[in-house]
């Protein structure tokens, strides 16, 4: 049941050969260009709580089918010519026969306060770092002869890219790789033959300043020009909230172009931007970035600044075109400024204003269609219960799979999993469970997938009791008393209307048909959303930890000494020592000398054996 429904998703071509995503400013197909192409965009989205989401996206198409195949045939020496693509990124992928790869780092996203179910870029994973991808199975003669398994190649590519991102992305042990999430992250090309999925979650990882420089170095503009010049300011970027960074690479095949996309997102608090007391949330490019609109990157095929707004924001100068786009299932109006076309923008500023005297923080914020929260209740040193609350605020029932990744020492009591709505048990909502336990003693992960039906306008609570198994002394991390972060849970939506991708809804307002667009403005259809996955928060799990401090060492040291000498002390205190007379002839070697011994009432003769006790 679970597998079949996921399969439906999997087999749906998510991205056509054209490879265009909804976010791309221009429609591009593989047939139109032979060469590599680069597009960039900056999307600004005001959030209801007085903050602003700032999302940079950089997309490069590369490796046209014809040229890549011809070059490998024409020359016996492998050649790699790169114009817009970063060799540091693509070579390890090529070497290790990777089909698709996604790396993302993110810090938490407050669903309740932003009115959005997650990060602005749909491929951003849950909290911490994550690397996932599809690798070709061993077909290559070279791989088979060198004895490199697909797991080895996965290790090699994650370690290589970990170095690139200054973060330990690779598995410390092979068992940390998660192999059961392929159906949560179906391949973009939709073809699962001969490819296998890997996922590695690093919930403890942080997006940090060291991640920005490598990210910029992958871009053709290197942070020198174009929109990336706005991003290349660590002092500003890292003061933002809810950061997310990611890259997604889809390698070219004989028939398809390759594509790699990088994104960076942050949340700017507009109230502090204007001074806390001012009560204003007006902003401008210069206010946010302390830079005017930079000159475009000469090789860029598109360079667009976008504003997603419900019309309350007034922009000066106003954007050149308005497009309609479905974002999280809501048909939004997007105002666009094409920097390539409008040369007058360069070096100037774009200001955004609200028509309001004073911003008043809303008492309640309309929640997005689906929100999740995950907490641990019944906390004990050895046990706990994961409580996952999934709120469906829409008017329709939803189908979804909720997935968890646990370290080996978290043992879920799968027979005691409960599903509740309003404190009433609803086992009927749990349609199937897939449980892949870890296999001790090898370090491995446990993964679980729960297929759930989420009734309209209700909160489904999934309770999973678990026990923490004892961790070996050497398995504790440094700062052991901190506990261990659990990866975000993933809610994968099964019922999305993927055939009608958001780009199908797209229309340009200046093409006419204003009335039609206005009537559909902000219409909401939760099924027509590109967001396939909603992530829960990370969680810090307390681990029963021995005290690794100095007194503890003293205690174990002295306990050891006591244990070692216990026998001696016990013997000394409870036994009485003396001489035992051995009867002559009792032992052949001693017998001759055994002789008559004088016994003066106490035992003090020397026999062969001198130990006695009472």
């Amino acid at each position, binding site marked *: 049941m679970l597998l079949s429904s996921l399969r439906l998703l999997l087999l749906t071509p998510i991205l056509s050969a054209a490879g265009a995503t909804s976010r791309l400013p221009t429609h591009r197909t593989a047939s139109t260009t032979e060469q590599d192409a680069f597009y960039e965009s900056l999307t600004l989205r005001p959030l209801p709580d007085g903050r602003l989401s700032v999302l940079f996206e950089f997309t490069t198409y590369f490796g046209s089918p014809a040229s890549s195949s011809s070059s490998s045939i024409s020359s016996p020496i492998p050649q790699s010519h790169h114009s817009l693509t970063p060799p540091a990124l693509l070579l390890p992928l090529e070497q290790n026969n990777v089909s698709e790869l996604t790396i993302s780092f993110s810090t938490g996203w407050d669903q309740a306060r932003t009115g959005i179910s997650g990060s602005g870029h749909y491929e951003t994973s849950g909290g911490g770092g994550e690397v996932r991808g599809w690798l070709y199975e061993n077909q290559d003669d070279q791989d088979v002869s060198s004895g490199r398994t697909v797991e080895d190649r996965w290790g090699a590519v994650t370690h290589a890219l970990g170095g690139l991102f200054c973060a330990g992305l690779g598995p410390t042990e092979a068992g940390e790789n998660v192999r059961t999430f392929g159906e949560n992250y179906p391949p973009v090309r939709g073809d699962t033959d001969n490819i296998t999925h890997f996922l590695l979650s690093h919930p403890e990882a942080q997006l940090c300043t060291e991640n920005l420089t490598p990210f910029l170095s992958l871009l053709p503009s290197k942070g020198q020009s174009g929109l990336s010049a706005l991003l290349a300011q660590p002092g500003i970027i890292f*003061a933002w909230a809810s950061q997310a960074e990611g890259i997604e690479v889809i390698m070219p095949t004989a028939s398809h172009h390759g594509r790699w996309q990088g994104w960076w997102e942050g949340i700017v608090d507009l109230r502090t931007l204007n001074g806390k007391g001012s009560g204003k949330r007006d902003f401008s490019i210069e206010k946010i970035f302390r830079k005017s609109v930079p000159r475009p990157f000469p090789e860029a095929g598109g360079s667009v600044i976008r504003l997603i707004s419900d019309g309350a924001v007034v922009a000066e100068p106003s954007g050149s075109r308005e497009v309609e786009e479905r974002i999280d299932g809501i048909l939004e109006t997007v105002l666009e400024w094409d920097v390539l076309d409008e040369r007058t923008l360069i070096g100037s500023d774009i200001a955004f204003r609200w028509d309001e005297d004073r911003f008043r923080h809303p008492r309640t914020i309309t929640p997005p269609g689906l929100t999740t929260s995950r907490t641990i209740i019944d906390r004990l040193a050895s046990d706990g219960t994961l409580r996952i609350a999934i709120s469906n605020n829409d008017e329709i029932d939803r189908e979804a799979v909720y997935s968890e990744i646990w370290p080996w020492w978290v043992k879920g009591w799968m027979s005691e999993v409960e599903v509740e709505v309003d404190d009433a048990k609803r086992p009927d909502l749990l349609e199937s469970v897939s449980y892949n336990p870890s296999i001790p003693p090898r370090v491995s992960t446990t993964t679980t997938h729960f297929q759930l039906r989420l009734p309209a306008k209700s909160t489904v609570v999934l309770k999973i009791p678990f026990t923490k198994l004892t961790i070996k002394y050497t398995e504790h991390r440094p700062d052991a008393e901190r506990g261990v972060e659990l990866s975000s849970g993933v809610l994968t939506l099964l019922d999305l209307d993927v055939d009608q991708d958001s780009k199908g809804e797209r229309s340009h307002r200046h093409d006419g048909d204003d009335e039609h667009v206005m009537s559909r403005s902000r219409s909401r259809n939760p099924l027509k959303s590109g967001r396939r996955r909603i992530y829960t928060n990370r969680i810090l799990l307390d681990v029963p930890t021995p005290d690794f401090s100095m007194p503890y060492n003293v205690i174990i040291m002295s306990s050891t000494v006591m244990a070692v000498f216990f026998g001696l002390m016990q013997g000394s205190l409870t036994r009485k020592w003396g001489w035992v007379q051995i009867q002559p002839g009792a032992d052949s070697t001693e017998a001759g000398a055994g002789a008559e011994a*004088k016994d003066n009432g106490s035992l003090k003769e020397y026999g062969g054996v001198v130990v006695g006790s009472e």
Partner: protein
Amino acid sequence: MLSRLRRRTAGPRPDPQGVNFTSEHLTAAKTLARRKQVINAIWVRIPILSLWSGGALEDIADNSLYFRFVLALVGIIWLLAIPYEGLWKRTYVDEHALQPSQVTMYFDWAEVHKADRYLDTLEKIVNGTFDERTAFLQESFSISGLATSNTSTSTYAHIRPPRSKGTETILVSANWVSRDGTPNLRGIATLLALGDFLQGQNHWASDLVLVVGEGYVEGLEGFMREYHNLFPGVIWTGLNIDYPGHSFSHLGMFYEGVNGRLPNQDIVNAASNVARYAGGVLPRLHDVVDEPPAGFGSPLVQNYLLGAKHLLHHFAFMATGRGSAAHGVLARHRIDALTLYASPAEGPHGFHTLGRTIESTLRSMNNLLERLHASYFFYLLPRPDQFIPVGHYLPAAVLLGASLTIGGFDCPSPLEGLGYILPAFAVAAVAWIVGLHPIFLAPVPLAILPRPQGQAHTSAKSLTLLFYGALIPTLAMVNFPQAVVLALISLLYLTLPKYLALAILAIQPGLILALAQGYWGLDLQKDWLAVGNLTWPGVYAVWLPLWMISVVLL
């Protein structure tokens, strides 16, 4: 001493004629003889142990009595020596991550002004209903830009700083009722001002949850019971604000939690350090004036008396297992927490000092990468900047416990003895189940329980001594003052001469509890029901059986 032992003759010389000994035999013989002498020397000098060395059985009672008396005496002397400065050490901050008083503080007069504005409204609604009060609090938090809601007995706000991962949380609370019993309006005003002040600051690594609880502890306890349904973050540390007066002269550190659980000493040390050096206000322990009493001659005596005064306050909270202020309920949830109590005075400090102290303390807590640990949970604080490490006070309780245990070694018939002890525990258990106040158990030992005679009497008494002797040092590790009180009660009940003991046993535990409730308002039963203070069940499980057995054994 060893060399002297070695030179001694080890028994009669072996006879070379009779035995074909080798040099190995000779060495073994010497070793054995030496060991025998050493052990004999010890056995002779410790009368109680002579049981195994073949001493006469009837001597044991006398010897053990003598030995027990010495142990108890040393224990009591040790106990009395605890306030002596020689056993103290200067406090220090053990967890280097805390870095107290090392940050620039931003809480300033603008925030003080806001707190004053909040205070104006709070004074108007202090006698309102819960709905009115929570509506105002939520409105204020919401205007500050915080997510806010309420439980049935508390109002809370959630600060999510930009850089926080949301996996850890620091709790800051202020309750409507101060520990004085007066409204804690300025504490709540400080909390509201903090909410506005902290929102949007981006140097925090933890989330912060602000809680305004109804009543003195009820609201906070109610909130903590629901916390894990509401928030994912683990709480390591907490701070409770109690500011009943209009100004204050000192900041009192109330640190004892429910059931005698103390916060990690680093919390107390860091908060004191911050108050002194960042806030500019002198810290106090509880509300005890930290000045040596005049007119007692030498500073040694003065410091002894001052230390004893501090420790007596501490013992009063600990022995009854009550939290010294509202933060006490957090102890049960494994949160290292502290109440900052603004000692009411004519001045000179107010919102400014308190706000800066809280800000800096929270920044210290925010620095933590892991839970506070490092065996820093067992301590006594005789003065604000002095502490007594566990090794310096624990032996007192161990000695008292040992003096009881040794008395129980003479147990000729354990099973028979058990038959006289268990009924007392059973009666107490029944009383607990039916909810009978201890005072109604007064006639039980005289009316119901059987009185052992002869060997059974000796055995029952020995078993009682063994049980309580084992219990006291164990309890001392968790709650030293409670263990000392139990040790003293046990000694009075079980070891005094008959008529003296009778006089003491006549004061029934229930009577003492009723008097304590009448005079000091010490309602242990209410504490047990409201915040889970285990002293009340402890009375039934430990004290009442002891009293009944002692009466029976008279």
